């Protein structure tokens, strides 16, 4: 059985997808721990799931529609109150385009 589920390079790639970055030591530790966890997950392959519908919510609900009524929303100042940086009624972020 393959004991290597995930390489250091894959860990670095998944970290990028998740918008995380790790140092060398952290990457090594996560690779080893994720490998152990993913090996444990292999036990699911013992289960025959042919024709079994995936369940993503235990209580099936129909779409929860409501009337499209206008209601009060948060004022701009309250929405921006927790922002690390805000200016002119907007969230301020570092440069996006070169």
């Amino acid at each position, binding site marked *: 059985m393959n004991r290597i589920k995930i390489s250091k390079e894959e860990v670095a790639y998944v970290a990028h997808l*998740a918008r995380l970055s790790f140092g060398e030591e952290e990457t090594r530790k996560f690779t080893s721990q994720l490998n152990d966890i*993913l090996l444990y*997950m292999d036990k699911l392959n013992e289960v025959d799931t042919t024709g079994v519908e995936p*369940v*993503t919510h235990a209580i099936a609900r129909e779409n*929860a529609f409501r009337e499209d009524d206008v209601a009060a929303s948060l004022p701009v100042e309250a929405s921006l109150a927790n922002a690390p940086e805000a200016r002119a009624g907007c969230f301020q972020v570092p440069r996006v385009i070169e």
Partner: protein
Amino acid sequence: MELYELTIHELSDRLRAGEITSAEIVSSVFGRIDAVEKDVRAYITLMRETALAEAAEAGEKIRKGEGGPLAGIPVALKDIFCTKGVRTTCGSRILENFIPPYDATVVEKLRSAGAVFTGKTNMDEFAMGSSTENSFFGATRNPWDIERIPGGSSGGSAAAVTAGECIAAFGSDTGGSIRQPASLCGVVGMKPTYGRVSRYGLIAFASSLDQIGPFTKDVEDCAIVMNVIAGYDPRESTSVPQEVPDYRSFLGRDIKGWRVGIPKEYFIDGIDPEVEAAIRKAIRVVEGAGAKSVEISLPHTDYCVAVYYIVAPAEASSNLARYDGVKYGFRAGEARDLLEMYKKTRSAGFGAEVKRRIMIGTYALSSGYYDAYYRKASQVRGLIKRDFDEAFKNCDVILTPTSPTPAFRLGERTDDPLQMYLSDIFTISANLAGIPGISVPCGYTTGGLPIGVQFLAGHFQEGRLLQAASAYEKHARIDKRRPSL
């Protein structure tokens, strides 16, 4: 007996009889906090000043005969519920200074029932953990032995109730985060059916599994607070528009002739012998109360942990994408561009366990692995749910241990995530199937650590759970010990 030692129903009776005031209860509770909090560390934020004002207000209402069902009762909130104007951290550096602009629905409901808020309790960061050691603000201690963990992730709420630092508390349970700490701290803890309590204003971890519930000193208090928090909320599209019964009406009813299912898969190698003995004794207690125990099978039990640790991280990786240093919370400085700001912020703002789960979840959802992990896990989840549907055709409630061991030592499992995950082995299945569960104290180890028994029932059968738990509590007559802090 000090006021902080009493239950909601005992205090309410005395409040309404005019023998005591809410201000006296609040002073008693804060006096207790001042005496023991340095050892227990149950709270992240205390709300002392507003609590005194709320107590005065409640006193006024009680005098006029207008007080709600929790009028003047000091309760604590896990720091995962948004509280308007009061810092809400979720145990994370990334929300260290977050001040919500609104209250969670549960907070609104408790407020209108007259509850007094003592503060926000400690928790594993983003509710990811089983020991409350993963908090950015440091670990909470088990009041029964401060060298041990209180369980988690709602460990602060469980410890606060046990230690008398509040009268009741609220938490969230995604894989056992109410029931496991309730068991390890010797209090009653309930996870209601998925959709029974609105999650609006609950900071999301795994949205298809998260559910809010109470920690109380006895089963009657659990019924009292469930009456307050249960119900449909138009602001929360997964809350279920189903009538809420009066949960108190299930108390004190007998369980003669009930069939209590004992799943054979829950008595495994690795279960602590003292826990197993206490559970076997609990089975004899329900039999003594007139119920019949029947062996049942939940064949996919062994796969619950693997399913959970794919589904929950997958949902978490998506839910936690919102912490990007833009709209609220922590932002790391000195970034050349937006992408670097995201990465620096999230890498510095999240702790190791949260990053580990975001990584597992992102991997399980990523192109090429989705079918092998997320889809496969969701299919096995369907089989786990079907196991319960089948089991409840043959029994009224199911009885199991809540946790395979009593409280373990601080640091004992922090270096081995998989070992930590296995602490939730008996509680996870209820979240995957969406069914309600309750943990009730059922004894102590020879070392004096509490042990809990779990009852499970079908969807929206909280009443049945409370009936079983209250009958068990009455017949078991577990001695009321108090931790010596």
